[in-house]
């Protein structure tokens, strides 16, 4: 069976081609999706890649959230389709309220690009089944608006329900509350994180590690198991 993963391009999306490559490296079929097009082309899962959609003008993710394609994504996500938001994609997902909380400017006020160690806190979501609970992975992080915030009640709820999926290890690179790097919704099909798994799928490229590949193989596992 061929698993089809849609990759959305908004105006200003940067990592769409990288994400398509990562999907292919994992042995899945990448389907480009265009922001103006509501048609999701019968994909089995959707990735919202990183970048600066609409230049991050107004607020990161704030304008993309209203694009026609997002109407379909929101509907499908609520029906259980696996959706992954990476960096700017995560910001879009919080803007749609598919995921709670928001991202503020990094506490040191600079863009930061580094190899970031993460701990997998939940290996049961649609996008993390290829990992072990507690496993540490190293993938690139690159953003200026990466500081995850939410009110105490939401944070407590996320913790209590096991919905913190990734936590920063060694260094909290942006001041995110409770070292949160990524979260999921209640059903575990929608995941958002700031670091970039799609940049860590080939041994020679980027950090030289393939720790990010598990995101994309997880989706295969999830769909085959289902």
């Amino acid at each position, binding site marked *: 069976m061929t698993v089809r993963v849609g990759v959305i391009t908004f*105006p*200003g999306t*940067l*990592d769409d*081609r*990288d994400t398509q*490559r*990562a999907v292919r490296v994992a042995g899945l079929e990448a389907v480009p999706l265009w922001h103006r097009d509501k048609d999701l082309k019968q994909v089995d899962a959707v990735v919202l890649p990183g*970048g*600066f959609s*609409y*230049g*991050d*003008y107004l607020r990161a993710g704030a304008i993309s959230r209203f694009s026609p394609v997002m109407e379909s994504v929101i509907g499908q996500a609520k029906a259980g389709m696996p959706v992954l938001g990476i960096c700017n994609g995560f910001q879009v997902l919080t803007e749609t309220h598919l995921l709670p909380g928001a991202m503020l400017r990094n506490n*040191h006020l*600079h*863009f*930061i*690009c*580094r190899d970031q160690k993460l701990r997998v806190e939940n290996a049961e979501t649609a996008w993390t089944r290829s990992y072990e609970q507690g496993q540490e992975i190293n993938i*690139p992080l*690159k953003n*200026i608006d990466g500081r995850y915030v939410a009110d105490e009640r939401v944070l407590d709820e996320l913790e209590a329900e096991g919905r913190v999926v990734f936590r920063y290890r060694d260094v909290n690179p942006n001041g995110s509350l409770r070292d949160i790097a990524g979260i999921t919704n209640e059903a575990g099909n929608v995941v958002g994180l700031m670091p*970039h798994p*799609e*940049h860590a799928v*080939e041994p*020679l*490229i*980027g*950090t030289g590690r393939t720790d990010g590949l598990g995101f994309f193989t997880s989706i295969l596992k999830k769909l085959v198991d289902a």
Partner: protein
Amino acid sequence: MTLDTIKHAEQTPDVQQPWAELGLKQDEYERIRTILGRRPTGAELAMYSVMWSEHCSYKSSKVHLRQFGEKAPENDALLVGIGENAGVVDVGQGYAVTFKVESHNHPSYIEPYQGAATGVGGIVRDILAMGARPVAVMDPLRFGAADHPDTKRVLPGVVAGIGGYGNCLGLPNIGGEVVFDPCYQGNPLVNALCVGVMKHEDIHLAKASGAGNKVILYGARTGGDGIGGVSVLASETFDDTKPTKRPAVQVGDPFQEKLLIECTLEIFREKLVAGIQDLGGAGLSCATSELASAGSGGMRVELDTVPLRDASLSPEEILMSESQERMCAIVEPDKVARFLEICEKWDVIATVIGEVTDGERLEIFWHGEQIVDVPPRTVAHEGPVYERPYARPEWQDALQADDANKLPRPATPAELREQVLKVVSAPNQASKSWITDQYDRFVQGNTVLAQPEDSGMVRVDEETGLGVAVATDGNGRYAKLDPYAGAQLALAEAYRNVAASGAKPLAISDCLNFGSPEDPAVMWQFAEATRGLADGCLTLGTPVTGGNVSLYNQTGDVAIHPTPVVAVLGVIDDVARRTPIGFADEGHLLYLLGDTDEEFGGSAWSQTVHDHLGGLPPKVDLERERLLAEILISASRDGMVDAAHDLSDGGLIQAVVESCLRGGKGARIVVPDGIDPFVFLLSESAGRAVVAVPRSEELRFKDMCGARGLPAVRIGVVDGDAVDVQGQFGIPLAELREAHEATIPGLLA
């Protein structure tokens, strides 16, 4: 105010015109009158003044730059040479690579963020205009003293501007330089390089041919920003007595540029353009006159159709505006509809503003009235050419006689240790990661090597692993001591860096940063540096494909050090064979390649320990550089070395420290017999590299060096968690890391 039409100009020959305020000299203004047979209109005067500025016309440098063509080495790889938006090089497998380095020095001092940001934007559009997808950027930067208060204003702004723009475009920033020297106080150098990749058949040129073809302006609206920006700013010396130049700096919108890139690439894919040019310095004046000059006919433009951000702009201002994120395309009439459709898809404004004619004139109209009627070549290519007087400055002899080799040297191993730590932690040798971590180096998913590696390397083809490597280098201190040798040392270092990564150097681009050409001493430095570079390129077989000259980098009568920055592009058949700098495997043997002499003129040690600049720079031996490069490339291809690092400022010890910190392993170093430990560790002789050789490959590697006649001395082994120089000193890696990495954040964070 009446519109200054051609008719009006003919009727009012004696009107006083502001040619001097626009930067023209009396004889230049007279020449315009002779060319036109009348006085120019206001619009024509605006066009000539920006196009004949130093920045656009190269009027002071042209006579020297000709050598790059005259002495160009035979090179089959060169597909497009000097004169286009950027040069293009064949890298094999049907791919072509275009690259160029440019300056945005003056705007970046006045308004660091926007100056640097639009520097990135401009060079990216140059690369795009050739038909290529931009795949990487690099930034050679130079600032005043690291601890000077104004550096804290300029540097963070420049870095944030480069990051803010480049990161938002999705271009990995894979290298460059950061250098501090008091000579750049008030005149920081912000150079920007872009690399683009295309297939041979996708090469596009800037020309307007085919009568009836439409001229389409697309991208951002034209505003009042940057009117006469590049041309005015970069063609004058800063002077406290004049009003502030801030209104002449352009403002960038990287989101618009990202849309422009994707839109243009889609237009290329559908083969919709007959000619294309980006709008940079001198804006529409430059684009229309250059396109028309390069084509077979003339051009007619309806200037009032240009979409404006500010409806009150005059035609002269529209012609001079340097608003960013604009391109100009020549499109056959039956392709216009599809062209506009693609622009609409990407939310890019596109407007037909004119057409190619079968005449020979560039004609521009404003609401039906003609305001420009000129032969385009006289604007774009037949500007003034100056034979500026030049003379070796009288202080040059004294400077060279002030021999750095005679400076007091460390007397004990403890003193040597202390001075080594001083060198590796000085701002120029310290880790620049606080700066480079503000740039995205991963985007596009093809980055194989990025700073602090010797070169930046990106994969071009996913199937075959074909890749390209680029390194930029320049050393103003060396060039001040001897501009001819200094330019060659910059070339040699960039060439060596590319080879150390395993790539074969193919071609160069240069950014020549100097003081005022009106000073004969500066002009001599320029003449010497260009001569050195042209001779060097001939010897190494690497042609100059294009670049940029930045003059007037001086405040009052104090010029910067002559600073030729050289970018070398290389190709590697399979990026899996690249050589990183890090010593990562214990037990690997360290070999020093090349000869070490006592050479401290212009060295990091002389600067750091003695605050001294004098003597002669290291000797240049380009045949040796070529041999070293061949060995490094062979060793990479055949898997004989696991790490390699070129030796440059800070000498051997700097390279060893960087490689150890990068790989996370220590090294035990043995000083060979017959050489002074201080010279061994800190001399900056050129033509050298240090490599890590697996024991299994030692024999083969030694034999290869021996057979080819390259000196190769075993100097130690990768081992432990300290850099230990036997009989001298040891420094734990943790202490080195602290010294090397804390400096820049300590000064700037």
